[in-house]
């Protein structure tokens, strides 16, 4: 996409948001969707869905800038799978199961760093940064083994648009270009590979769908986020575009109405709209004016009532001046408060009464079309539909 095309597209998004603002409308789904409560609570359904949606389909494992150079690695639990991401000395990012092939010890503790070899803490079997088994301590006494067959178990992995994508099951079908489709060039406009990683944190949160629903609608912004992000966006005004299972949400900023008084040729659309890119099933990228960006990866926990959100705060440039550090710190604190102290407090409340029997269904409104789309895609993939569907 050329810069001119992008400018035109952003103007069109601003027009759509302005039209909703003037008419007090929003993009809508055809009907209210009633989702049976079991979709949020049933343990068996949950385990089946996590297996299919999070372990067999491509998901966002991390950011390219989390592996800044050869030998940089990231070890973490991802949807119950021990994941080791490594950028090899050939500069290629790979994903492995973080497990020694000898007798199954985890290779690296959770965390990140840089190393050229990976030695098991149990008996010091050592692997290269490309996963090959390099050395077996006292190999002559250990006995005959074929080291070529004992490299780390590799998972499908690819880098696109500044993100590390992968699938958490060895050998599972993985075609990242087909999976992302037109969403890849859309994500590419964010240029995530060139940002500075300011800070990261893992936030415990409510159950998977309770959590994700909140990332996919702006209906709650006035009531929940009055002290934080709600001050910058208009509650319940959504412009939605879909790319297969993935979605781009456009929110109106409080200033959107002023565009009506300016000739379109003078519009600076991004001062009046805010884009959220939602990669199915676990990614949310929220670009904010002022050179800051929040990337959230939501990982399902062992049970239907727990998630871990990996929150990454990015800055366009490494902040060096006091003013820049202060601005980045303020952004980081605001998004932490909005998510941890606002969204996830509401979510924890929902989890605490979800078994009370008050609701046989949760209702997802016509004004929450992105939530509906997310749930429909879960149902579609669970029904065995393997098409990415555009």
């Amino acid at each position, binding site marked *: 996409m050329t810069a001119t095309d992008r400018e035109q597209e952003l103007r069109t998004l601003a027009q759509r948001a302005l039209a909703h603002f003037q008419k007090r409308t929003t993009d809508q789904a055809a009907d209210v969707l009633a989702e049976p409560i079991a979709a949020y609570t049933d343990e068996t359904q949950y385990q089946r869905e996590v297996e299919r949606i999070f372990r067999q389909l491509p998901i966002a494992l991390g950011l390219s800038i989390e592996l800044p150079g050869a030998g940089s690695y990231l070890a973490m639990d991802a949807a119950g799978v021990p994941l080791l991401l490594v950028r090899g000395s050939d500069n290629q990012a790979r994903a492995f199961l973080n497990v020694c092939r000898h007798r199954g010890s985890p290779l690296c503790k959770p965390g990140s760093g*840089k190393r050229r070899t990976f*030695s098991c803490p149990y008996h010091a079997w*050592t692997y290269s940064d490309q996963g090959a088994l390099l050395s077996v301590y006292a190999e002559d006494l250990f006995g005959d083994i074929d080291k070529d067959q004992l490299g780390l178990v590799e998972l499908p992995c690819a880098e696109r648009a500044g993100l590390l994508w992968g699938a958490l099951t060895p050998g599972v079908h993985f075609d990242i270009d087909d999976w992302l489709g037109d969403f890849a060039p859309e994500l590419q406009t964010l240029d995530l590979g060139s940002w500075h990683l300011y800070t990261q944190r893992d936030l415990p949160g409510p159950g998977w769908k309770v959590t994700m629903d909140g990332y996919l609608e702006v209906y709650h912004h006035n009531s929940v986020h009055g002290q934080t992000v709600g001050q910058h966006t208009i509650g319940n005004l959504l412009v939605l575009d879909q790319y297969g299972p993935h979605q781009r949400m456009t929110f109106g900023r409080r200033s959107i109405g002023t565009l009506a008084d300016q000739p379109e040729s003078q519009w600076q659309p991004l001062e009046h709209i805010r884009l959220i890119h939602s990669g199915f099933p676990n990614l949310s990228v929220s670009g904010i004016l002022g050179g800051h960006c929040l990337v959230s990866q939501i990982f399902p926990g062992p049970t239907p009532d727990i998630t871990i959100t990996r929150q990454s705060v990015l800055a366009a440039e490494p902040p060096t001046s006091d003013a820049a550090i202060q601005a980045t710190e303020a952004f980081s604190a605001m998004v932490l408060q909005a998510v941890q102290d606002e969204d996830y407090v509401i979510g924890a409340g929902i989890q605490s009464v979800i078994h009370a029997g008050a609701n046989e269904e949760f209702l997802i409104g016509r004004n929450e079309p992105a939530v509906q789309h997310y749930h429909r895609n879960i149902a579609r993939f669970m029904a065995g539909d393997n098409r990415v569907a555009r």
Partner: protein
Amino acid sequence: MIEIVATDREQQRRALSASDGDNLMELLRDHDLEVEAVCGGCCSCATCHVLIDNDWFDRLPARGALETELLSLSDHFDDRLSRLSCQLTASPQLHGLQLTIAPED
């Protein structure tokens, strides 16, 4: 006493006293020099990489094939200087040996 002169990553030179038979990786580690030695001295992990002063390299026992293979993965591998310190043992012949802790990869 055998004296080993080690230069750390801040370019500070330190004279360390060793006894005959001491493992050099353990000597460096015990003096808080920056050898990670993840594998504990098995010639397995290549995180106890040192660069031997030129005059001394050829006076050491020969480097093994596995040691060379592991060292060659380092960005700072020098075929004429690099050793894994876990594969070296202090002896009276090495009195005055000079080495430098290899930079972090």
